[in-house]
């Protein structure tokens, strides 16, 4: 089928303003949007900039806005947009554009890092594994799917109103260790989340949950943490 792509272009070294460039392509319905991007770059315009690597939704490189919705270009197929006339590709909203579809993720990653996303175990380690029941393991089963693609943070309406909000991806990382029964920092982690730009700016738009390429129940997880804070730290709440 014939497909028209309308792609956001901006090279701060040479462009005053961002603009959109149109590319026409004949594509198979089952081709990935990423396959199309590759063919545009390889065959039509080598100046096009975007990130990609694994091409099957594991590495998290190719988060972008496809027809207005944040998604991974390697997880969306041409047939998903069969009725839309043209396919518009734009960089993730909220993020600073470095070139075309490539955005600056350093601050995003620093926010994830600020959640101390590693196990803090105070006691002496056993010779074998730390025990954990299958039920306790299940508590983190959803959030360990996170691939840090930043689609959630790009889609979150609160990020634009309050750029200091730590954002959904960082909160998923926080959840991952907060509810890991092997971790000994439960209260410390809760206190961190209880700060003004921790969990509280989330007001349940559910956009993060809708766009997550790994189907993580992000908003629900954030609400779970809010409830935990209210229960564990007296006198809190919005």
């Amino acid at each position: 089928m014939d497909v028209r792509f309308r792609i956001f272009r901006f090279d701060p070294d040479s462009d005053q303003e961002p603009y959109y460039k149109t590319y026409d392509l004949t594509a198979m319905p089952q081709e990935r949007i990423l396959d199309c991007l590759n063919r545009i770059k390889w065959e039509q315009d080598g100046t096009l900039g975007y990130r990609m690597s694994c091409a099957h939704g594991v590495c998290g490189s190719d988060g972008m806005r496809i027809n207005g919705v944040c998604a991974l270009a390697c997880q969306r197929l041409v047939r998903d947009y069969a009725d839309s006339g043209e396919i518009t590709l734009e960089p993730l909203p909220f993020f600073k554009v470095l070139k075309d579809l490539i955005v600056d993720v350093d601050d995003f990653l620093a926010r994830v890092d600020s959640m101390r996303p590693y196990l803090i175990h105070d006691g002496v380690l056993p010779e074998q594994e730390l025990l954990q029941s299958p039920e306790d393991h299940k508590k983190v089963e959803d959030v360990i799917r996170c691939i840090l693609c930043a689609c959630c943070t790009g889609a979150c309406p609160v990020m634009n109103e309050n750029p200091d909000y730590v954002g959904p991806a960082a909160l998923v990382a926080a959840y991952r260790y907060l509810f890991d029964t092997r971790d000994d920092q439960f209260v410390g982690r809760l206190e961190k989340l209880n700060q003004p730009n921790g969990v509280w700016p989330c007001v349940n738009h559910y956009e993060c949950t809708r766009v997550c390429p790994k189907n993580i129940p992000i908003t629900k997880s954030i609400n779970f943490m809010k409830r935990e804070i209210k229960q564990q730290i007296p006198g809190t709440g919005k």
Partner: protein
Amino acid sequence: MVFKHDVLIVGAGIAGLRAASEIAGEADVAIMSKVYPTRSHSGAAQGGIAAALQNEEPDFWEWHMYDTVKGADYLSDQDVAEILAKDAIRAVYELEHMGVPFNRTPEGKIAQRFFGGHTKNFGKAPVKRICYAADRSGRVIMDTLYFDAVKKGIKIYPEFHVLDLVIEDGQVAGLIAYELGTGEVHFFHSRAVLIATGGYGKVFKVTSNAFASTGDGLSLAYRLGLPLEDMEFVQFHPTGIWGLGVLITEAARGEGGILLNREGERFMERYAPTIKDLAPRDMVSRAIYTEIREGRGINGEDYVYLDLTHLGETKLAERLSDISSFVKIYLGLNPATDLIPVHPTCHYMMGGIAVTRDGNVIDVNNEPVPGLYAAGECSCISLHGANRLGCNSLLDLVVFGRRAGRHILENLGRLPWVEPPTRPVQQAEDRIKRIEENRSGEKAVSIRRSLQDVMMADCSVFRREQGLKTALETVRSLEQRADNLSIDNGGKRYNTDLIDALELQNMLQLAEAIAASALNRTESRGAHWREDYPHRDDENWLKHTLVQKTDSGISISYKPVTITMFPPKPRAY
């Protein structure tokens, strides 16, 4: 700008991260990667990591070692296989202590499952040896090690593409890298370099590998005349999604999935009567292609079915959820009710930069190069031999990544700061300039496609002399064409057009090494199957291949295999 660190690690996958973690705090270590660390391809490993923990049933490191050696079709150095199988147990507990969220047994221990080629009592029946976190084991191990690096404050240079090693009088002086964000070429001064850049499956048309898997690290060493070892051994994973090559983990069969031909027959019963669908990957891939060639592919086409319909929704959700979603997204199928069309996909390279047991790169005379190391898929530590077993790769990364890190630390005191030549970046800058300023050359894409096509047609699961000669000649003519590459992009910022060109030059060199090594080896062993020489020939070929670039072209030599506990026997499953 000049950067300076005691130790530089190229590649931020699991091997590089594990080595860095060993060095951090003791010496100044930095990691560079052409992608952001969490995008590295270790994260695509699905099935798990092997260790004889005995959490589900009796198991012993000797059984694991035997399986590794037999899986390798006896081309594994057995002293190395012994280190792996013994250290596996410590290594998995270490990962668990760091926070890796392994699935659990009802008693709260690390759960274990079946996998191809892992058996009890020296081949009698499958054994539950594989520790896993659903089917995203690589991703969670990599994330855990990455955030450990963050915690330790290890300096990371993301989106730096390595161009050259700088070696003066046989000693490491550092390396040259291209910064994607700015287009600048930098010299990194260091006393030791660890190459951990992963595989190069992109040499083949159908692959489970990432676009980034172009073997840049091997190419660095190869260009300097250092030998690559056992390059003819290329693993095709039996179950890639038809057409796409996206991996469906062997755990699907470990959990009970079976392969079916067009007659609905579970054909692996004929090829491996004892362990059937859990035979090693080389055997299953050959079996699938044999079925297809004999007209028993589905609808006469080039695929067979993977049947997971009897596993049930719960098992699929708890243990195979990522692959279930791949099947849904790319094929529109539900593995709980639909059969999955699969065929072999290039997955793993047994060959790589020749190294000692401690990861020290060695020259063709077996002499270590002071300060130069390699670990993980880009290296060949003579462990996986002619065919790697599933779940031995993640294990290799953490066991030998750590050993390389330790060896670097132990030797750092003896490694001087070697003065680089004046303007060490000159050669690399010239190479880039030639591509940038070439207005009349060819673009990378058509050369790359020709490369991937010929390697797939003539150098994949089944090989013959004529085909290998064709492949070698084609690759050599493509190399000449690639001397005259040009690009559209004249910009400095994220010029991935340029990176494509540089990666293609790297891949062509490696393809030549693969084809030349394969042409020379006139026997069939593990993943290297010669239809014109369909038997293993221990008398003449129980030896490792070393391929090296010299002024007069490619030179191939051999070195012996270390055999300790398990003398070679016929390999049946």
